[in-house]
Structures are given as C-alpha cells and as structure tokens.
C-alpha cells in the first residue's frame, strides 16, 4: 500500500498538471456545454494566450537557470513601441508597406533583445539579484515607452499588411466559425507552439539546456565543470528578451497599435504562474516547457470559462487564485 501511494505520488508529481487540466476541462465542458467545447472558442483561447505563452516559455528557461524576470511585460511594451514607431516612420518616409513592416518587425525584435541584454548585463556583470535587476526594468522599460508616446497609443500606419500578420492564420480544412468563414489557426498560435517545441527541445536535448539546468541547480558545480556561468546566464536573459520581442510583434500586429500604458501590464505574474503551474521549480535546476504550455492553457481556460459563464467579475480573482494553488497542490512533491 505504501509503495502504491508513493507510486501515485510520483505519477501526480509528473502528470499532475495534465490531470489538473483535464479536471478543469471537464468542469468547463460540463458547465458551458457547446459554448466551451467549440473549435472557435479554442482558437480564441490559444490565440489570445499566445503572447503570454511565448513569454512563459522564455520564463521557463530563465527560472530553470535559477533566475527570474519581472520585466517581461515592460520589455514587450518597449519593443512594441519602438518597432511600431520605426514602422510608422518608414511609412511616412514613403517606403513600401512591406519594407516598413519588415523594418518595424526587425526593430521590435532587436529592441527586445537589447532590453534582455541590459537585464543580463546587470545580473551577470553588475551581480545584482535577478529579482531586483528586473524589478528595475519593470519600472524603467515601461516608463521609456510612456515617454516615447506621450503615454498615448501608437497606431500602426500600415493599412493592411501589419494587421494581416496579427489577425491572419492558416485555415483548418473542414472547420468553420460562427460566421461561416473557414476557421484558422492564427499565426500567433503557430509561433507560440513553434517557440515552445524549440525551447523544450533545447532544454531536454541540447547542450545549452543541460548547462542551464546545471547553473540553476548548483552554480558552483557548474563553474567547477568549466562552464562559463556568466555567458550562460547572460544568454538566457537575452533569449528572454528575444521572446519578449516576438511576443511584442504578435501583440502589436494583432492590435495594430500599441497602448503604452496598458500593453503587457501584469503579464510577468501570469507568465510566472503558468511556469510554476506547469511543474517547474522556482528554485531552478528543473523545468519543463510542455508543462508551461499546459499551465498557460489552464490559466487561459479559467479566464475563458469565467468570462463565458458570466461569473461576477469580483469573484474571478478568488477563483483564479484558488485554481493556481490547487494546480500546484496536486503535483507537489511528496515529503522527503
């Protein structure tokens, strides 16, 4: 019996997040019926959670390396603001729309990487605890975006191309939405899933992933093994910046504009919650991207379900909090 229960514990620890997902899914389907189990609803769910999902994938890597990044939401808004501004300048300067969109996209990504490198430099060379360095970034990057846009919105001047990128997708044969048009998998969903698969592969199969785990679990051991801790840690923040840039691109093209006071606000906590719900340890040294993806879906599903079923907005926070805690509770490791 004892052995059985320890087996069960182990299974829960490994697959608990999937079980939590399944339970939540069952409840949602039961309560909402067709409103919930509806390809269009899933498309929307994936689509709207893609940006925070991309951030959460990056956050998984950062957390595995023993760090944290509180500045992701602010990096998104800064990258999006700079990128959209650059794009508009190109359009005003009479480049072709395609050119302008390409340049805008490149600036967005580059700005994300640059912001990530600033974080990385403060943490690695400045030897500042990641929590603090990125807390500074959380304040500073958004502040810069506000200054760029006088706290307003930056509207994309690309009439069609940019928003086509954000709202378009790949049609799924045989499925139609409520309006009778073919249902698509949005580009943002595709990008999210590709990013997740690549990151999971890196984490479990590539050298870099191995090194991240080593640095996160035991930095001294990693250093004694000849790893360059600084370079590994720097890179993971730069990658986080890259992913924030990608998320910024997905978001700004989808909205065809950047609201500097609101874009990405609070997404750091959502991303961290998704990572931990997915079973990655905040201590570092262990993590799984697939769990994070499920965690993002769990969080998205709660919100979606609460929205559809019209639960009082006042109580939504309580339910969300409870689900986060429960999802972690089912998969906590057994007492040593």
């Amino acid at each position: 019996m004892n052995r059985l229960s320890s087996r069960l514990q182990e299974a829960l620890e490994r697959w608990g997040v999937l079980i939590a997902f399944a339970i939540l899914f069952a409840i949602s389907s039961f309560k909402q019926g067709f409103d919930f189990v509806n390809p269009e609803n899933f498309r929307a769910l994936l689509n709207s959670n893609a940006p925070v999902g991309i951030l959460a994938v990056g956050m998984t890597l950062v957390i595995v390396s023993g760090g944290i990044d509180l500045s992701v939401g602010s990096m998104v808004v800064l990258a999006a603001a700079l990128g959209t501004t650059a794009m508009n300048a190109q359009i005003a300067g009479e480049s072709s729309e395609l050119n302008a969109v390409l340049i805008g996209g490149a600036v967005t990504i580059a700005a994300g990487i640059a912001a990530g490198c600033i974080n990385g430099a403060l943490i690695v060379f400045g030897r500042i605890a990641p929590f603090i360095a990125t807390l500074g970034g959380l304040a500073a990057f958004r502040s810069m975006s506000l200054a760029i846009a006088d706290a307003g919105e930056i509207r994309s001047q690309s009439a069609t191309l940019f928003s086509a990128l954000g709202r378009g997708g790949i049609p799924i044969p045989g499925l139609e939405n409520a309006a009778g048009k073919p249902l698509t998998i949005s580009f943002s969903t595709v990008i999210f899933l590709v990013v997740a698969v690549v990151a999971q592969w890196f984490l479990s199969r590539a050298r870099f992933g191995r090194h991240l785990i080593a640095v996160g679990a035991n930095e001294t051991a990693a250093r004694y093994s000849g790893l360059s801790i600084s370079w590994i840690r720097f890179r993971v923040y730069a990658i986080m910046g890259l992913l924030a840039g990608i998320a910024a691109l997905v978001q700004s093209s989808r909205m065809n504009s950047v609201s500097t006071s609101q874009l990405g606000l609070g997404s750091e906590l959502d991303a961290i919650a998704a990572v931990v719900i997915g079973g990655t340890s905040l201590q570092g040294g262990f993590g799984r991207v697939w769990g994070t993806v499920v965690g993002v879906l769990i969080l998205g599903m709660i919100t979606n379900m609460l929205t559809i079923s019209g639960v009082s907005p006042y109580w939504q926070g309580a339910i969300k909090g409870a689900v986060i805690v429960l999802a972690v509770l089912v998969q906590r490791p057994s007492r040593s």
Partner: protein
Amino acid sequence: MENRAVILGTRAVTVDYPGVRALDAVTLDFRAGEIHAIVGENGAGKSTLMKVISGAMRPTEGELELAGHSANFAQPSEAIAAGIAMVHQELNLVPTLTVEENIALGREPTGVLGIAVDHRAQRAQARELLALLGSACETGELVSSLSIGQAQCVEIAKCLARDARVLIFDEPTAVLGEQEAARLFVQLRRLRDEGRAVIFISHHLDEVVTIADRVSVLRDGQLVESFARDQSGSLRDARGRSVDAGRLAAAMVGRELGSLFPNKGAAIGGQPAIELIDFGARGISQGISLSVSSGEIVGIAGLVGSGRSETAQAIVGLRPQAGRILLAGSAVRFESAGAAMRAGLAYVSEDRKGSGLHLSLSSIANVTLPSLDAYTSRGGLHVDSNAERATTNRWIDTLGIRCARPDSPIALLSGGNQQKIALARWLETNPKVLIIDEPTRGVDVGAKAEIYQIIAQLARDGLACIVISSDLPELIGLAHRVVVMRGGRVVGGASREQLALRNCEERIMRIASGLSAELEACA
C-alpha cells in the same frame, strides 16, 4: 626521478583571506608520471592550493607555471582547457541531472550540429568509467538519490572523463569505503603510468605512504618538508631516512605525536542508557536490536549504503521509525530532532554542508543553535549573547578550533574545523546518548586524536556513545564493541576481546561485504 618533466608548478603562490594567510609563498612542482601527495593539518592550505591550480580562485601573489610558461587562471574553464581536472573536497554535482549527465557536464558529446547531446555516447562513457571504479549506480539515476559514497564515485568518474594531464583528488577517500578506495588507487596508478601528473590529498596517512611517489607537507600555509620515493620503492626524507605515517604526522604538526587512540577505559556497566528493540528506519532498515550502556562506545561498521545513517536518523526522530526505543528503561518515540534532544539524544550528521551546519552563519550561531533555550530569558525575548560568546570560545579552546573570529561565517573554516564545530554544537546540549556519524571525515590526524580523546572522555563521564564510521581502524581503536550492518540489518559484530585480535579488521570487512555469513550474538 628528478628528471621527469614538470607539467605544472606553483611559483611563490600566496593567498590571503580576510584575516588569514592561507598560503605563504608555496613553490611546488608536479611531474608527469608521478603521484604527488599533499598532506597537512586541517586548514594548512591544501584545498586552497588546489583551488588556485584548478582556476577556482586567483592567488593574491605568485603564479603558476605551465609547461614553462607562467599563467594564472581566472576561471575553472581555463584550467580545464589547460588539461587540469579536479575532484573537489566537497561534493559538487548537479542534483537534478542524472549520473551520466553529470559525468559529461561541460564536455558533452554532441551530434551533427554541435547542439544536441549524443545520449548514446554519453551513456557508454559513463558506464565504462563507473565500471572501472566498481560503482553499482545506474547511469540514468538522478544524482539527488545517490548516497554520498556513490556520489563521490560519480565525481571521480567525471574527473577521469576529462582526459586531463593533471588530475587533482582532494580527499577523495574521505567518503569512500575500503573497496571503493582500493579501486580508486588502481586507477590512480594507471593514470600515473600513463604519464599524467596526479595530485592526491588525504588525511589517511597510511594511504599516502602506500601510494605516493612524492609527498609535500604544508603547515600553516607554508611548505615545510618534501619526501620522495627512491629506487627501492620506499619514501625517504632529505636525510635518507625512511618515512612512515608517524613521521608524516610529526612533520604535519611540527612535533612527535603520541598514540592516536586513547586508552579504552572499562565500559561502565549497569542499566543500558538506550535500547533498540526490533528497530529500523521504515523502508530502509529493520530488526535491529542493540543496547548501549552509559560509558560505552559502540561502533557501527558497514559498507556505504548499508543503512547506518538512516537508522541513526530514525532514532532521533528525523525519519519514520519502526520498532521500539527504550531510554533508561522507558519506551520513547520521537517525532522530531527537538524532542529527541530534550530527551538527551544527540545526532551529529555525516553531511556537514547539507544537514549538519549552517555554513553562512557564525561559529556562535552554529554552536548554540540547538541549545539556544539555555541562553534565553524573558520568554524567548532575550538571548544572552555574552554567554553565547563565552560558550563558543570555550569550545574553540577545548576542541582546538582554528577560526579567526567566532562571529564570522563558518563557511570560511576548513573542513576539519567545521567538523569540530558540529561536535561542539551537539555536546553543548549535554546529551546522555551521542550518535556520531563519521566523526572524523576530513579531519587531520592531530584533530582526529583530539576528537578521539574527547569521545573517550565523554564516555568516561558516563555518556553512551554510538559511533558510525567507514574508517575501520578508527572503530577498532575507539569502540568497546562493534556491530556490523549490511542491507539494513545487523549481520554480525565484534566484542571487546575480538577487537583486540590482529585479524579483526579483515573479519569485519568480510562480514560487512557479505563474504562470511556470521550471526553471533553481540547486542
């Protein structure tokens, strides 16, 4: 022998820590095809020297000489690139990676693109190396689930995997059983014969005398003497006299040492202080019956992984227990180490870094932590820090602990001094029964003798002592009686008379490794 090529040398290397000069202008040569042993008391600077060589730290002054060129490493990676590999004194593995992943860490075999790790090659290499060391652990197992001994084998395998020109082993045998140690020595000799430079540090001086081609003695950060093996194969000092373990010890401490072990007084008979009846740590050991009287020292021998530590932890309430414990005749059961402590039990852990001590805290905080109530007044609101300091200073004197300031973190102390702090922490609780797990792991001969004296004195004062050790001479020299564990059960033992016999060590070894099945009454 002097004509062998010098691969690596230190040139007047000096290292200063705040308040301590750990190394003082040490100049040494390490030659190809030689096993060079470094010995010295705890805190003599051995590990510090090795850290300089392996790039873990930069010297304050002086430099290294590598194949004729002067060099200093800023990072371990630079030393590794220069062909230097090291097994550190403290375990340094990644607990969340598997055995094979740890062995390959930093030089993973990769596939086509140089990005993906080639798992098959990695596993094959790990298997081969572990087989050389006779380790039984699975290559796919997580390192966090290994015992210390097994983990040390992984460390050694990792070092061997580097194919280095200079290999450094800082007290590799401290946590190994005799068989593992023997296999390690085979490997050390092989490495030497392949023309590599091997640096070996140990407090087991007879090991040193057996295996080293050259021995350098450090005292207080200075190189005080060197011995080399001559054609005839025996170690000799500068004047050509043959060198044995006693001579090494004398060189280390700067005076002649008396006998290592104290005289065994008669065990005070009478009522047993602690009695285990059909006891066990749930899931690990079972059916252990043992009684220890006041004034008696009982040793527990066994191979790595025989369940001794877990059993001891179960006694003091750190693990779920099965069976019964009688303390001075009445049945007890502890839910926590605190409860056991209040009943007069103390357990000194074998794992100083992980569970035994708070390395980031001061000596004072460490020594008084379990017994803090004694310094506390006004309902816990006031801790008498003067009394604490006085107590700590008393222990520093009594145990001869070398620390610059009692309020600086003990992470700065050498391993042996840390061990003494751990001992002081528990002796301060005034236990009636003391369980010491590996009391002298990583402790130098001088300190060892002191610790033995202390244990014997405590026993004479009426303490019941259980000593768990993988160092058989230690058990034989210290204990009144030894029980042997294997696979979580008591499989044999040796009485006081048997311990006096010459073949005792071998006999215990045979029982412990299951070669002779002997179940005689010894409890």
